[in-house]
């Protein structure tokens, strides 16, 4: 599903060059569920963004679903993201002016592969799956955090993405609710054979994954023990 070859990412900062990522080779199989762990600043988010094509690697190859993401043109990357990737953020990032239903329809608008009726039907189904059928026309500000993240999960699944990238999706939700949201996400991914890469800090969640990857094990740019000084936030 995902293959990373000789990935390097270097940022230019005022203090000079900052190498954030240096990965020789890493692969994720289709349908896998991976917990990506590592301290703050160890490049987890950057890695997800490189996989989705939002951030271009300084060097190396990114292959997702047999597509060389790093070689795609800007518009092709947009299309690729809309069709193949579902994103879930720590702070949900729903569009506040749109209702829950419309938020779920949004990626379908960008993928432009369904008519309005179909969009609405699919969005309703998805919101039903995340148990929000009774909240279709609510604006995000009128939803609880747990509900907002469930809308975000439905949105991530909108275009039948086969890869979901979740960046600390429960980080802003209380433990019990977070657990429920996580269960939902994991089950939906299993049911739909969707590959899931989820960044998490929580020990609880790690234990629920069959594969846990500490980014420091694959990222040569950072060594265990160094992060506290070098990557302090």
């Amino acid at each position, binding site marked *: 599903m995902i293959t990373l070859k000789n990935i390097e990412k270097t940022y230019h900062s005022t203090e000079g060059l900052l190498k954030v990522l240096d990965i020789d080779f890493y692969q994720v199989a289709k349908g896998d569920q991976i917990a990506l762990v590592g301290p703050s600043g160890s490049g987890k988010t950057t890695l997800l963004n490189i996989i989705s094509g939002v951030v271009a690697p300084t060097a190396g190859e990114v292959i997702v679903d047999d597509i060389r993401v790093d070689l795609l043109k800007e*518009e092709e990357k947009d299309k690729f993201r809309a069709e193949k990737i579902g994103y879930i953020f720590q702070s949900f990032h729903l569009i506040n*002016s749109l209702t829950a239903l419309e938020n779920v329809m949004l990626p379908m608008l960008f993928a432009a592969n369904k008519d*309005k009726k179909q969009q609405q039907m699919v969005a309703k189904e998805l919101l039903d799956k995340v148990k929000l059928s009774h909240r279709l026309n609510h604006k995000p500000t009128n939803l609880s955090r747990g509900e907002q993240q469930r809308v975000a999960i439905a949105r991530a699944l909108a275009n039948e993405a086969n890869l979901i990238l979740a960046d600390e999706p429960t980080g802003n939700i209380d433990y019990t609710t977070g657990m429920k949201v996580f269960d939902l996400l994991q089950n939906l991914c299993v049911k739909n054979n969707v590959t899931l890469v989820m960044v998490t800090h929580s020990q609880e969640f790690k234990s629920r994954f069959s594969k846990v990857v500490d980014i420091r094990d694959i990222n040569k740019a950072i060594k265990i023990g160094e992060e506290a000084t070098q990557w302090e936030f």
Partner: protein
Amino acid sequence: MGILKVVMSNLGNRRFSSALTTISVAIGVTLLIAILILSSALYQGAVFQGGGYDMIVGPKGSATQLILSTVFHYEVPIGNIDYEVFRKLAADERVTKAIPLALGDNYRNYRIVGTDSTYFMEKEDENINGVIATGRFYEEVGEVVIGHMVAERGGLKIGDKFVGAHGVGDGIGGCSHDHHNEDTSATDPHHNDTHHAHDLEYIVVGILEPQNNTDDYIIFTPVESVWEAHDIHASHQTYYHYKNEGYHLQEEHEEHHEHHEHHHVDKPELTAILIQGRDIVSLATLKTAIEADTHYPAQAAFVAVVLRQLLKVLGDGAMVANVLAYISIIIAALSILISLMSSMAERRKDVAVMRMLGASKNKVLTIVILEAVVITVIGILIGIIGGHTLAHWIGRHLQHAAGIYVNALQYWQGEGITVITVLMLGLLSGLIPALTVYRTEPTKFIDN
């Protein structure tokens, strides 16, 4: 869901500022459209009204005032000229048509104008009753034919009798004799009898077809009625009769002078003469001749020349108004810009999220531009309705005050350009904020 839905919900989320910016666009467009309609209508009206005549002969003084007071029945007349001037001109071979005008009194501020049937006729053999909607044309002194608005608003109908009030009235923008300039009072026959109520009783014998010009607000009567009202008892027959008979106009005068304490002119006079000439050369020599005559002093003004000057003034006025209206539109565009820019901080995050979800740069660009365009288009639509309504409303007052007919409920040339210009400005005001989000790097505005 379409892109417009996203746009509309964004606008809906900022209801107050969206409404304000829409209103500011609507006000600007209202002004632009109203000014366009009114200036075009005034221009057309002026050209249309002054169209028929080449030259106006009247007392010496301001040519503009002469034309305004005779052609447009606007402003007070300068004074009078001797009837002899008309006699000479009517007989002059350089003149193809000479129409006498004698401005008399007013009835409820509707001017009473003495003239003959040639005033209404394009061709000599035309049937005068073609211009009459009901009744017939006047034949006797004291008979009047009224403009259709006089009938409608002044409440006069056929058979009604009335007595004129002194002065030309201000219904058509003129002012009463009380406000007369000192320099015109010398030639003003009514100077000393401001409060004199005249005895001549007018009778309505006909109502004119709508002319869509100042004539709709005028009461027409034979020239002799005007004289009669001012105690120049020339004749109780109309001009048509005596014109061929070498009529003696002054014979009854002496007697009347003794009966009144007021000073009256002792000979028939006219306010102006409308002239159509044989050709431009004839008119030019005629003008020189008229103005050289010291015995019967008069001026001859070319309608086209004065009209051009008037229209230039009108055009300048419209231009100033237009500039102001465009300034208001630019302010409206700026307010769209400011409103969009001020919402950009929060919008940046939305845009970044949308980009992460796969929205192309062009889509987010379109969304922001469309927000400006939607506001502009709604503003324009309101403005078009508002502009026509405003012009219609002002037009009705104008029609009453100046007799210029404004048809505000039609498309006027130039509206299309105005709308496109405003649309472009709206587009521009959306483009600047749109470009700032266009360049937004999605990851920079997403905190994880």
